[in-house]
């Protein structure tokens, strides 16, 4: 047996009382793709940050190619042949591809020789690994799939033999993800070692050779991918059996609650982000909006939630709602029975510094329940209401006095859902309900959304996770470039067809 490309021995790291990594051991052989999966907060990112030099382990050893290595900062990691592709790209938007690639790896004070060298190197890499990018394109003008390739090229240009990818497919369409996996296969064939961090079991099964599962800071198992199944991996991650499929009765839609006609939104630069959207949602059904992020879904959510203005018509229960004037704010929307679970709970849905009870009245703080008299708010009542909601929504720990920032992603999301769902809204608008949420909580959140539908609420669900769209929706609309590309019934379509629609290929072309 040859020496491992990376071997970690007994890595431990604590943040205060929280043991983020506990005695982790992992061995990755050269020329393989190694998956690391685990719920949020399981310690995957901490482990990779230690490997890349962002953190120092409290104890443990890092062996690279059979040599004991100390990595105190990312430069040393790069020196040891480690490259990292982050979930959020670290690229300068108004630089060209070439400029981004040499940034921080210039050979001298003058740029021209470095650029020329990089251009040649880039050409070689492009041919070798199917990594085609235009070296002179500006980053802001190329798509996310391309940007990711630039990140990979950056690592390869720095002679990385070991490539770490953190949730690389979150922003990609299915065809783009397939292309990425082909690239990874190519890299592997050239002897590169790849560590793939993801929470998508399907990807693990598709491309990895071995997979390590982390749970609560510990490495619970490392198995050959060929010998395992998604069900087994899910169970290892959560520590108990999980239902990967959502149980639901057929929908019984009745009257139309939401009707949207020719909705248009321009952003600050005057670019049209929604280009004439029309759709409707009936009581007792879930309309799923599929699409790669950045194709207008966020804008649609924000218009419905009263955050940004628009032109066109939105009708709720037969009456038009104000899209630009005094009544176009979030308070007016709530009065019309629209509840909004935003995509980004950290920036919109919650105030992280506030305690849970303050967050649970957030947006509904005009309600009579929360007032003691005309001037003073009833904080005690708010705390009691919050405690009840947290109990019913299984928020852990169920302590309303704790700051929102101290809850895990899944529990934060449950706080938002408890606030919005228990109002029994006419229409629930929900964006990425399970983003950054662990598998155990996903199950619960899905059940709550379906229960609300069964009570007769109209639900508009936006998600970039196709699995989620397929399992929850009663109808699916696909958005691309600010438009609805088409509508499908979940039992009459598949990921391939939806993937093409998400990539902007309409019916005729697809056939």
């Amino acid at each position, binding site marked *: 047996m040859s020496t491992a490309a990376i071997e970690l021995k007994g890595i431990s790291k604590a943040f*205060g*009382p929280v043991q983020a990594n506990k005695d982790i051991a992992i061995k990755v052989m050269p020329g393989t793709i190694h998956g690391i999966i685990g719920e949020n907060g399981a310690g995957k990112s901490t482990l990779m940050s230690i490997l890349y030099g962002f953190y120092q382990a409290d104890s443990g050893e890092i062996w690279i190619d059979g040599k004991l290595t100390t990595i105190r900062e990312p430069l040393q990691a790069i020196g040891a042949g480690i490259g990292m592709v982050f979930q959020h790209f670290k690229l300068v938007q108004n630089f060209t591809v070439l400029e981004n690639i040499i940034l921080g790896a210039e050979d001298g004070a003058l740029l021209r020789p470095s650029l020329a060298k990089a251009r040649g190197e880039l050409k070689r890499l492009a041919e070798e690994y199917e990594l085609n990018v235009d070296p002179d394109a500006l980053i802001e003008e190329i798509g996310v799939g391309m940007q990711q390739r630039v990140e990979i090229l950056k690592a390869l240009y720095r002679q990385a033999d070991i490539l770490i990818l953190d949730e690389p497919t979150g922003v990609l369409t299915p065809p783009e993800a397939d292309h990425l996996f082909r690239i990874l296969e190519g890299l592997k064939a050239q002897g590169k070692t790849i560590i793939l961090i993801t929470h998508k079991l399907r990807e693990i099964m598709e491309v990895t050779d071995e997979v390590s599962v982390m749970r609560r800071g510990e490495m619970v198992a490392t198995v050959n991918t060929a010998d395992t199944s998604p069900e087994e991996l899910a169970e290892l991650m959560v520590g108990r059996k999980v239902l990967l499929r959502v149980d639901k009765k057929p929908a019984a839609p009745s009257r139309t609650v939401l009707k949207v006609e020719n909705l248009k939104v321009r952003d600050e630069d005057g670019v049209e982000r929604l280009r004439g959207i029309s759709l409707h949602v009936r009581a007792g059904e879930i309309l799923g909006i599929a699409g790669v992020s950045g194709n207008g879904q966020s804008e649609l959510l924000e218009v419905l939630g009263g955050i940004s203005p628009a032109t066109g018509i939105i009708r709720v229960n037969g009456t038009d709602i104000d899209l630009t004037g005094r009544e176009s704010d979030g308070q007016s929307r*709530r009065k019309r029975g629209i509840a909004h679970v935003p995509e980004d709970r950290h920036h919109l*849905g919650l105030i992280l510094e506030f305690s849970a009870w303050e967050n649970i009245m957030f947006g509904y703080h*005009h309600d009579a329940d929360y007032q003691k008299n005309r001037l003073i708010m009833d904080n005690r009542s708010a705390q009691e209401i919050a405690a009840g909601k947290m109990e019913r929504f299984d928020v852990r720990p169920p302590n309303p006095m704790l700051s929102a920032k101290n809850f895990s992603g899944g529990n934060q999301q449950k706080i938002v859902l408890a606030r919005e769902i228990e109002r029994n809204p006419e229409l629930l608008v929900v964006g990425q309900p399970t983003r950054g949420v662990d598998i155990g909580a996903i199950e619960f959140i899905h059940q709550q959304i379906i229960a609300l539908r069964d009570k007769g609420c109209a639900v508009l669900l936006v998600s970039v996770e196709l699995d989620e769209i397929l399992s929850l929706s009663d109808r699916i609309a696909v958005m691309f470039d600010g438009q609805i590309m088409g509508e499908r019934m979940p039992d009459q379509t598949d990921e391939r067809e939806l993937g093409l629609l998400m990539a902007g290929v309409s019916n005729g072309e697809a056939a």
Partner: protein
Amino acid sequence: MDKMPRWVDIALIPFINLILALIVSGLVVLYIGENPLEAMAIMVNGAVGSAYGWGYTLYYATNFIFTGLAVSVAFQARLFNIGGEGQAMVGGLGVALVCLLIPFPHWSMALVAAMIGGALFGAAWAAIPAYLQAKRGSHIVITTIMFNYIAASLLVYLTANTLRTSRGMSNESDRFADTTFLPSAYEMFSGLGIPFSRSAPMNVTFLIAILCCVLVYLLIWRTRLGYEIRSFGQSESAAVYAGIKPVRITMIVMLISGGLAGLMGINAVMGEAERLVADPVQQAGFVGIAVALMGRSHPIGVFVAALLFGMLVQGGGELEFEMPEVSKELVLVIQALVIMFTGALDNMIRTPVARAFAKFSRGDA
């Protein structure tokens, strides 16, 4: 990261900062050849060693409570109101106009009218930068600083021209009528057996300042408006999601902030000078920024910090008088060191203290 106990955050860290400031100040005093301990004793004694000293210390503290609260309220909405100085000046103008133009039969009526006048003028002076911030996105730090200069020039102009007294050569208004004179601490407290000095300027406004601390506390932590202000301050995007209107909050907060600064005019113009002078505020608006920083934008913290700065100003004055080597500028240096350590260098102390506590509590476990 571990959370530190609350008392560390609001008491221990400011205290360590203060001690450091005093140590550095001591080194400066040592350098010019005076005994730092003696200087310290003179300062403390001058500030709180006599009824006279207390009368001045609390007078200054009253000013700083108003300006400190003004900065704190704005800061709850993450608006950095640097314009307390100008708003207090214009507030003083409002107070002076009320006192000069209306013949009051009794001081209590004059006080109520002056509160309205001071608050309205201060609020109006804050309203313009607030509007520019809310509607036009002009940064409030820049505009409020500029408005300080405009206010200073306006008062110089008015006291030299329009409102200038016919008696005497100085740039100031006529003395107010006797019926507007506020009861001094001497008159208020001697009945209770607390002997305040007759000549110290502390007056009934001190009680209004304490009342304002209570009202600000209630506003920020007990009312719906306060909840909206804090939400907006923590996250503007989340506030918009909740249907809180940024323009409305920015305007309201700045009006309250300017109004609080304007109330300082009662203490300085009506309580002390009893006329409008060209600079009634004497930098108290800027000290208010340090007071708010040190007091963590909490009314109780503001009260304590205002008291400390009141002591510094009064004790510093005594020091300058008692020690010939210590100049006015050196007293300013000492005050500046305290502001620097408690305000600007706060994080220098915070990080090591937090780390020490993390280590300490882990050792415990």
